[in-house]
């Protein structure tokens, strides 16, 4: 079943003193996310990730287009009881304790009074804040606030969780904890839509990613497919004190680390390279095809758009290979 269906959603703001200039924040976006999927929305700061999330949360109103969540329109009251949202770098009511805050959000989300307190304690425990539950939030560190943020997003057991830059500003330990939590949500069958500009997180967690830049969706693809594409090159690792001259002649780019050589060369030279190793009596460690990394895919999609598209009237639609229809599942670019 489709969890999120975004149909040509777009947003532009009127800027300038007389508010006559239109600043395009999001170009027509068409995207579909299936239930149970972990979807990463990648892009640099100001790319349109947060705008998309705000549109889906009903915090800003679209200039055009529409979206459906769990088959319902965004303004359908039923939708909001089934979604959880963590904004970027969240701050909460300074004078409330973590327990009071979660109880308040539980009340607003319609968590029944009976069992609410137990649910709050369960969430505090899950994010590792049981010991600080009675401390006012103004005394919390950034990482602790992020954990409270995660707890409030999943408190009411939503089907869909939207996370805006959930790892931003966290130390490695904190990032690990958030990653574990997203994995856990996946195992519980939740749909997770999260924005990030940390590619390693996306690569580790997502089923699919979408790359957005300058308000335009540049591509959508399944991580497994994106990173399985070979690039016509192989990587050979073997024991040797130096790079054999015969290998260099085959066009290998090699580096030596201790007594291990790492060489990358064209796929067609594979047999010749192995023959060199045999001839030199060198011990092979591994031979693997060079695959495209998510980073390369991301960089490839960061090409600048021709023409003055950042500001001005939003008459043109996406000029790219149109991630319009082909982005349901699989590679969209």
């Amino acid at each position, binding site marked *: 079943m489709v969890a999120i269906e975004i149909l040509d959603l777009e947003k532009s703001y009127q800027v300038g003193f007389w508010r006559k200039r239109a600043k395009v924040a999001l170009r027509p976006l068409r995207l579909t996310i299936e239930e149970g999927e972990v979807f990463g929305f990648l892009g640099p700061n100001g790319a349109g990730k947060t705008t998309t999330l705000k549109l889906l949360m009903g*915090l800003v109103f679209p200039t055009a287009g529409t979206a459906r969540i769990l088959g319902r329109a965004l303004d359908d009251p039923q939708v909001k009881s089934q979604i959880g949202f963590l904004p970027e770098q969240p701050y909460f009511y300074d004078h409330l304790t973590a327990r009071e805050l979660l109880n308040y959000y539980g009340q*607003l989300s319609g968590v029944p009074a009976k069992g609410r307190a137990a649910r709050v304690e369960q969430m505090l425990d899950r994010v590792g804040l049981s010991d600080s539950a009675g401390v006012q939030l103004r005394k919390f560190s950034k990482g602790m606030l992020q954990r409270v943020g995660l707890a409030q997003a999943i408190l009411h057991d939503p089907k869909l969780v939207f996370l805006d830059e959930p790892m931003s500003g966290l130390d490695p330990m904190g990032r690990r904890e958030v990653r574990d939590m997203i994995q856990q949500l996946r195992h519980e069958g939740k749909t997770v839509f999260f924005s990030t500009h940390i590619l390693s997180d996306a690569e580790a967690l997502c089923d699919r990613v979408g790359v957005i830049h300058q308000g335009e969706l540049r591509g959508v693809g399944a991580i497994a497919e994106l990173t399985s594409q070979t690039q016509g090159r192989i990587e050979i690792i073997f024991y040797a004190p130096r790079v054999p001259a015969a290998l260099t002649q085959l066009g290998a780019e090699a580096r030596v680390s201790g007594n291990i050589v790492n060489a990358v060369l064209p796929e067609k030279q594979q047999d010749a390279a192995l023959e060199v190793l045999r001839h030199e009596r060198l011990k092979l460690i591994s031979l693997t095809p060079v695959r495209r990394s998510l980073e390369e895919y991301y960089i490839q999609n960061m090409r600048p758009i021709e023409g003055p598209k950042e500001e001005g009237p939003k008459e043109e639609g996406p000029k790219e290979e149109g991630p319009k229809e082909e982005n349901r599942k699989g590679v969209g670019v």
Partner: protein
Amino acid sequence: MNSSRTDARIGFIAFNTFREAVRDRVLYNLIAFALLLSGSAILVGEISIDIERLVVVNLGLTAVSIFGVVIAIFIGIGLVSKEMDKRTLYTVLSRPVRRWEFIVGKFFGLTGTLIVNTLFMAIGVLLALLYTAHRFEKMDVWVMVAVYFIVLQFLIVCALALFFSSFSTPLMSAVFTFALFIIGSLAEDLRGFARITHGAGGVLATAIAYLVPNFSALNVISQVAHGDSVPGRLILYNTLYALLYSTMVISGAVLIFQRRNLK
């Protein structure tokens, strides 16, 4: 999200607003100042032979009114903008909470805070009166009516602060609200001016005179300080006026906030 839950959600938001406000230390400083002023009224009263009561009531209730307005503006202007700046609003409105419920909840929370504050400050004034007269007098009831009218003023001030903060910066909201409080306190004079002005200027003056909140009608401090009674009809009219005016202003705030993009 059915209608039976709406009142509950408004109640939760109101209670949370109240709880946040009462835990803010700045509030206690302001109340302490007001109580100090009421206390100092005793000293001033003691050197004012025969008019001790007049001085205590005048100074005490004026302190209650001014500090209450400062608190109303101070908290009211930040209610929406602070939630937007800190993005707490995002986590509230991404739940089954309608935007109007949020505004109305905030309004009730703020007025609740002010009612409790006023109660404390009014107790200070009553204690000052008890100190000067050594007993409560019958006419002290009218002092309580004056306090009630001050609360009605706060109702309108809260609504105005919330209204301006629904589309403006905290600083501008404070300026607008305070300016309207000052103009509204001179509403009777403005109406008098409108009566003697003719032509387009007269129409404009009349429109402004009736559009600005009539805080002067809600100010009976001087009257009760002299021991005069307050007619029951005025209590009824003032109550209806304050409720109607604040409802209209809050409706305006809701209309603006409903359409606002929360950037």
